[in-house]
């Protein structure tokens, strides 16, 4: 959903007049002359006289409603299926606190927390992905591909192997993610972030951290290593309650921050000169976006391990559904959550009683997708 706050014209008149053809609205509203909103938009608040009006893109509303509906349906299916199949009615009554104890326990204590964790991690990975892609102006630059996931995983494994404090994985994952991001962006400083070189440098950084993870696992007892193994490929099994809560708070705050940044994101897709000409403080914005993306990735990795492909697939779906007018932040988050829920559902049920870690499911879906992106005739990225 794109909320556009058009400020009083006298403040940002110059910038607003440049932004797009819709900028006339801002000025017109000030003059109190009703003007039709641009095609494809709804406008709220034009009669309030406060000089503030909100433009809502109709397509975005539809896309997001459909995604929410799909997410709810997928969530109910998720709660229904498993080692014991329940009917949708049973699930809904169990959610409301009725029905028998056994079903209630299974839905509320076992499946619901996992569903919530899936939604949160998927949303966080996809949001981080679209932020990073827009920042780097590179469609392939998702945190998973440029090594940030692996950095977070390596540090978080160090905390799991070394100490047993429930807060530690999130904090350590954050440290690792920041380290990896600094390395990748620092190493690519000369060649910019748009080409494939940046991505391959990131793959190199990711390989180093992947090796460090293996190194840490090789040093501990075989049981500890076996326990950590599903988590290193990405799984919702090994999550701890504390890290899920942290992710929830982080995603809520990060989502609001991303909405606030959405306008700058739209403009940052253009060249540096265009963006600063339109009144964006590109340096500060970039650092904010990078920080947001890294923090979201780290918190999600602390819950589910490196499921980075969601960060590629979610934004791809969102972009395919949305118009290119804006960066579809909300749609990407929803699509990421949907992908994660469906992938974990498939991993839990398709090969039952064996449970496929969700990281493997997303890698099997995402690998061919990535190949397809690479094999297509070259076009501009992001």
């Amino acid at each position, binding site marked *: 959903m794109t909320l556009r706050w058009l400020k009083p014209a006298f403040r940002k008149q110059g910038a607003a007049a440049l932004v797009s053809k819709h900028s006339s609205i801002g000025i017109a509203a000030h003059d109190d002359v009703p003007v039709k909103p641009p095609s494809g938009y709804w406008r709220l608040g034009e009669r309030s006289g406060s000089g503030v009006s909100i433009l809502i893109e109709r397509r975005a509303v539809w896309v997001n409603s459909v995604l929410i509906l799909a997410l709810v349906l997928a969530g109910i299916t998720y709660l229904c299926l498993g080692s014991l199949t329940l009917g949708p009615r049973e699930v809904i009554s169990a959610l409301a606190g009725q029905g028998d104890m056994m079903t209630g326990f299974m839905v509320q204590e076992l499946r619901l927390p996992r569903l919530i964790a899936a939604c949160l991690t998927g949303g966080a990975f996809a949001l981080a992905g679209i932020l990073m892609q827009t920042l780097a102006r590179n469609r392939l630059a998702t945190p998973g591909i440029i090594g940030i996931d692996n950095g977070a995983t390596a540090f978080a494994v160090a905390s799991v192997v070394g100490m047993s404090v429930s807060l530690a994985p999130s904090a350590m994952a954050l440290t690792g993610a920041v380290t990896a991001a600094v390395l990748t962006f620092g190493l690519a400083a000369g060649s910019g972030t748009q080409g494939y070189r940046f991505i*391959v440098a990131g793959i190199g950084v990711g*390989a180093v951290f992947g090796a*460090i993870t*293996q190194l840490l696992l090789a*040093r501990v007892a075989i049981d500890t290593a076996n326990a950590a193994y599903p988590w290193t*490929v990405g799984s919702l099994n090994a999550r701890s309650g504390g890290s899920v809560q942290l992710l929830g708070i982080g995603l809520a705050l990060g989502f609001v921050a991303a909405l606030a940044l959405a306008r700058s994101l739209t403009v940052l897709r253009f060249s540096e000169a265009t963006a600063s000409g339109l009144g964006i403080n590109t340096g500060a914005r970039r650092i904010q976006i990078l920080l947001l993306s890294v923090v979201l990735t780290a918190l999600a990795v602390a819950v589910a391990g490196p499921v980075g492909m969601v960060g590629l697939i979610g934004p791809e779906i969102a972009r395919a559904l949305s118009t290119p007018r804006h960066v579809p932040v909300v749609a990407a988050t929803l699509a990421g959550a949907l992908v994660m829920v469906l992938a974990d559902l498939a991993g839990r049920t398709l090969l039952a009683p064996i449970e496929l870690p969700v990281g493997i499911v997303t890698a099997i879906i995402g690998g061919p997708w990535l190949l397809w992106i690479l094999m297509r005739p070259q076009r501009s990225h992001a």
Partner: protein
Amino acid sequence: MKVALITRRLEQRTLLALLLTALVAVSVVSLLVGAGTVSPSQALSMLLGSDDSEAYFVVWELRAPRTLIGIAVGMALGVSGALLQAVARNPLAEPGLLGVSAGAAFAVALALVLGASAATLRISVAQLGALVGCLCVLGVARWRGVGNDPIRLVLAGAAFSALLGAMTSMILLFDQRSADEVRFWVIGSLAGRRLEDLWAVLPSMAFCTVLIALIARPLSALALGERMASGLGHHPQLIRAMVVLCVALLVGAATAIAGPIIFVGLVVPFIARAFAGPDIRRTLWFCLPIGPLIILAADIISRVVVSPSELPLGVLTALCGAPVLIAAVRARRLPML
């Protein structure tokens, strides 16, 4: 001019001799050093003639086969890296990065789960998997536009090997017993390999040596371009097919013994080219000692660092190889092959 060329040749000969000496030295160190309780001095005195049955067992039954296998794997990976880079005309084309090793590992995991266990079968399955992986990679490279951009090909290879890796993990989930057997093999290690494993791959390595001796000349002609090569009387398609066969056999053999070890095929030709210049034949000669040198050095480190347990070899090669990849990518211009 001519004199300079000759001295350069001589210098290269000396360099090669030096590398061989270094290889012998590293092999001896590999016999002396280990993660276990037999100390280097104990092993040395045993080698010099003292009567120590524990040291005898450890050195000749455990460390010697391991060293020999390390040498074979290093040669195979180094040479196959140089060959693949020459035929893909891409200095970053590395069997591990492009998914050839992952193809071999996938095939082996599949065969293990389906019930195969004999060493020779494992090797031929790995070679078949490597062949399929190799053909996929070169198919992608010939796709419009992808092969022209070396870095894009690496990216496609990375995606391909990630996919294969995920599928390998998935297969292993079906079968816990094979999973325990394979989990350490999948990371890449020389620990616990027996001499029989080496004998099983020797025929295919000998075959590859003959094949490489035959195609080395045409291959350097191919470096001048496809039309130039056919103008000189070579058959580019045939050369390419033979190179692919060699790479598949070598990588498949190395993977079957030691597991997928990535980045060695990148680092070794990288160093070899620095010594030998652009000529593929000289590069191949230099790859022969450098590959085992790197593998053995990494293997020795892997035994010492976390003693008394061991570090998987693949971890160390990744730690050394990834910076080389980054350096190569950061270079303003990639050397064209």
